[in-house]
Every structure is written in structure tokens, then in C-alpha cells.
């Protein structure tokens, strides 16, 4: 099995549909909506704020890396506000992308 064969895709599709669906936090949805509108006002020529696949993968990677480093610190009863900020920023970035994808698919919140 490799990322370029169909069994891979089918397995992922199964996992995605089998995963529990969670309600969207209305406060987060409102914040995202404001952030997206604000970004569109700043970039009127850009129809939507979209991330390329590489930018998405980088956001996931940055977030995971920060969670891992912070997780190890927390094991030592320590913390790092900069890592917390990076995790939140990456989460916002990927969540905004999800919302845009949902809007594109006609499933806007």
C-alpha cells in the first residue's frame, strides 16, 4: 500500500467517515467568520484565503512539532507560551481552511 494506490484512498475514506463528528463551537465559528471577512477585506482581489497543500502540510507539521515539544515540557511540569501560541495559530489556520472547504462544498456553518 502506498499513497498513490486506491486501497490507500479507500482506507482513508473509511477512517474519515468512521471518525466521530463533532459540533462546531459557535464562538469559534463566529471568530473564524470574522477572521475570514477581515482577511478578504485586506485582500479584495483575492476571492478566498486558501492554503496550498504544501502550506497545509506545513501548518500540520508545525503544530504537531510544537505540541510534541510542549508535551515533553509539560511532562517536566514546565510550559512555553510561545509554543502554545504557535499551536493556536496553526489550529486557526487549518480550521479556517476547513471552513472555506465546507463553504465551497455548500456546507457552511
Amino acid at each position, binding site marked *: 500500500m502506498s499513497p498513490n494506490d486506491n486501497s490507500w484512498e479507500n482506507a482513508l475514506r473509511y477512517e474519515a467517515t468512521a471518525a466521530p463528528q463533532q459540533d462546531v463551537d459557535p464562538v469559534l465559528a463566529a471568530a473564524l467568520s470574522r477572521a475570514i471577512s477581515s482577511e478578504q477585506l485586506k485582500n479584495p482581489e483575492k476571492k478566498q484565503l486558501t492554503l496550498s497543500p504544501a502550506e497545509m502540510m506545513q501548518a500540520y507539521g508545525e503544530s*504537531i512539532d510544537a505540541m510534541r515539544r510542549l508535551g515533553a515540557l509539560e511532562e517536566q511540569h514546565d510550559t512555553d507560551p510561545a509554543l502554545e501560541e504557535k499551536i493556536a495559530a496553526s489550529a486557526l489556520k487549518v*480550521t479556517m481552511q476547513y471552513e472555506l472547504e465546507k463553504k465551497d462544498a455548500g456546507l457552511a456553518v
Partner: protein
Amino acid sequence: MMSSIFKKALGLVTGQVVAAPAKEQVVLQMPKNRPFKKRTERELLQMESYIGAQLFGDVPAGHRREFFCLDPHTWIWHEESVDHQTGEKKLSTTKYEVSDKGILKVQEGSRYSYVQGAELRNLLMATRLYYEQVARGVYSRDPHTGRKLA
């Protein structure tokens, strides 16, 4: 050069020297609860890799799979299997390097190429599932906000 990078990456996850001949199949498992010992970054990476391997369904007997985020710009996919008839061991390691130009696929013995089309969609879906499940399952964080789950 490339080979040593793969070995180093796998060594980080498994904690073993990959080049050494394995006497028996190594099964990656979640570290057991150890209330008096702190988990290191490497052990957290092992836990992530356990989830990464499960994203694509059950791992068949005699088969080993690794899928994990090594650092913000590098993802590793590794497959190991044994041909039951010949006893021959098959290894396949792919490194995905994320850059501004795209996602470069690096495999031993193959030409480097940027991931495209269905493969790119599959890879992105895999990293998304990895992110969501690792955030919740390993770090107890909401992947949508990054905040700690109650």
C-alpha cells in the same frame, strides 16, 4: 547520505538501530503507563507513530508500517513486510519534504519528484487525520482550536 537520514529518522521512532538484523518482528506499541517516569519527545513521537500506522486500517501480521511527522517540514512513510514463500524482507521508506515549491517525494533508488494529483490528495488527507487524531489522542488538544481538552 539519504539512507543515513532514513535510518536516523526510523531510529528516532523505534529507538533501535535499523540497520541491525531484526531477530523477530518488532511491534510498535503505546508506552505503558509509568506514573513515575516522564515521557520524552522520542516517546511522544512513538505514540504518534502508533496512531499514524493505524490510519490506514489494521497492519497485517508480519507487516510493519510507520507514518509520522518527523519535524515541521518532514513526514516519513515506512513499510516492511516479509514474503512468506521466499522469506525475503521488503523495505520501503519514503520521505516527504515540505517546501514553498511543493511536497518533494524522496525514495531510495527513485528519482525525486513533487507529489501531485490523487497521491497529493491522499497524502494531505492522511496528514489531516494524523493531525486530528494525534492532537486528541496523544496531546489531549482540540485540533480546531489548539486548546487543551477538558
